[in-house]
């Protein structure tokens, strides 16, 4: 491999990390509360509210059922509006975030559903408000499960970030596409793929390790 390509791969790694980090961060900032609302407003839960749950649930389901590549294309005007451009690393963060929020929300919702009803009942019997119960009983109890879900989500974002290369995003995915696919340089393709796999594995391992450390059971 030429020095030029090695530099490009190094750059690609950084861009992939950047895209993954910011997309995951923003999608958690928005997806976590959304997941909590989906959980709390569903049937039989603390703040049961059918209309809210139905509307949010439908939006989340639609976003989640769109193939990510389609979402990327559909979001081009929106991305341009937000970042002023539709290509590049920063621009890719927009569709990555939008695509990940519903995944995060559903993952959070399912983690919260695992919390035993008995704990919620104990909180209610203690005179805790629904919001207090969520913040101080349900979320802490769900923390290990949330962390595990987090690792899976970050790995998913990383995978998606590679796809962003298709519509002009940066990162390892774009390099794989440019050199590996269009110019058919096999070793570049395999190097980038290997790097992506290693990164996913690292995230997964790190997530599991943290979750294990945090878990008190």
């Amino acid at each position, binding site marked *: 491999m030429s020095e030029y390509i090695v530099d490009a791969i190094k750059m690609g790694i950084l861009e992939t990390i950047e895209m993954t980090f910011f997309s995951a961060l923003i999608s958690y900032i928005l997806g976590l509360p959304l997941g909590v609302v989906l959980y709390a407003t569903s049937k039989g839960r603390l703040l049961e509210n059918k209309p809210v749950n139905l509307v949010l649930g439908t939006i989340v389901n639609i976003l989640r059922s769109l193939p990510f590549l389609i979402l990327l294309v559909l979001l081009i005007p929106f991305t341009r509006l937000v970042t002023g451009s539709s290509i590049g690393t920063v621009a890719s963060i927009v569709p990555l975030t939008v695509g990940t929020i519903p995944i995060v929300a559903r993952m959070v919702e399912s983690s919260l559903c695992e919390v*035993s009803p*008995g*704990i919620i*009942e*104990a*909180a*209610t*019997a*203690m*005179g*805790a*408000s629904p919001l*207090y119960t969520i913040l*101080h*009983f349900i979320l*802490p*109890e769900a*923390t*290990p499960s949330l962390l595990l879900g987090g690792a899976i989500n970050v790995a998913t974002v990383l995978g998606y970030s590679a796809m962003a290369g298709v519509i002009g995003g940066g990162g390892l995915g774009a390099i794989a596409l440019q050199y590996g696919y269009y110019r058919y340089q096999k070793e570049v393709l395999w190097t980038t793929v290997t790097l992506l796999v290693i990164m996913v594995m690292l995230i997964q391992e790190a997530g599991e390790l943290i979750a294990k450390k*945090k*878990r*008190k*059971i």
Partner: protein
Amino acid sequence: MSNVFELEHVSKTYVNEGKEFEALKDVNLSVKEGEIFGIIGMSGAGKSTLVRTLNRLEKVNEGSVKFYDRDLADLKPSELRNVRHSISMIFQSFNLVNQRSVIDNVMQPLRIAKVPRKERNKIALEMLKVVGLEEKKNAFPARLSGGQRQRVAIARALASDPKVLLCDEATSALDPKITAEILDLLKEINKDRKLTIVIITHEMAVVEKICDRVAIIDDGRLEEVGEVKEVFRNPKSKAARKLVFPSNPYDPSKPESRLIRIVFDGLAASEPFIASLVEKTGKKVNILSANTKSVGGIGYGQMVLELPESGEDQKIIIDFFKEGGLSVSEVTRE
């Protein structure tokens, strides 16, 4: 003495997928200040539903539940939450937050009641001392035994300085030895802190050991309420008899035989009266069931006897027991 709880004509109907189920039927009940009140019944009788109406975890369809003369149904959500600081509850499955340390768990109700941080810590430590678990304050629930977890739950329940403690099958997940320890602790708390306790259980042994009064609930209906000793001595309802004599004692040699129950307490328990009966009257009876118990420190027991066919013999035997100070009642077969 004022009543802690006053239930009048309480009914509760669950609706599930259009199907209605009446879990409580016209329940009338009062719990007095300072007593340990037992509610006993078979599984599915409606005990949990009943106890959950006491802190309004369960709304009632009809009737009223009053806590110190205030109808819980009239309270605004925030008022209800305040009242709940005075009504603590412990559960069969402990319901501690597993990802939080013991002391954090115990401090939780104080935090909800907006007690300042420093004070929270102090009170929580005090409560852990009451249940004998100070040295476990930084442990996590998963590292504790069932009995220890229930002690933490009790410490947590006491932290908000409640007026009443509700226990829903609090010892049902524990073995007999640990159950006895937890019951002793509850009794001690009841005495020392003048805390009213409502205990839900399906085990007669729990009622025998610590309750002052007991209510028997069967199929959503309150069958009988009374002093534990009274209910034991003379269970009036079918449900009560079933609980007092858990195994079916009625297996007489002839299906149409006359059966009587004799109840003896304190003094009489030490007398060999069946032997005396044979000695003095020459009449024989068939013992169908016998058990002796200690209720509130007084040894007492009862027997179900099958009498001989002759009415004359029956009269002689019954008179003999009555003269000996035993209470005799007919046993009707179901």
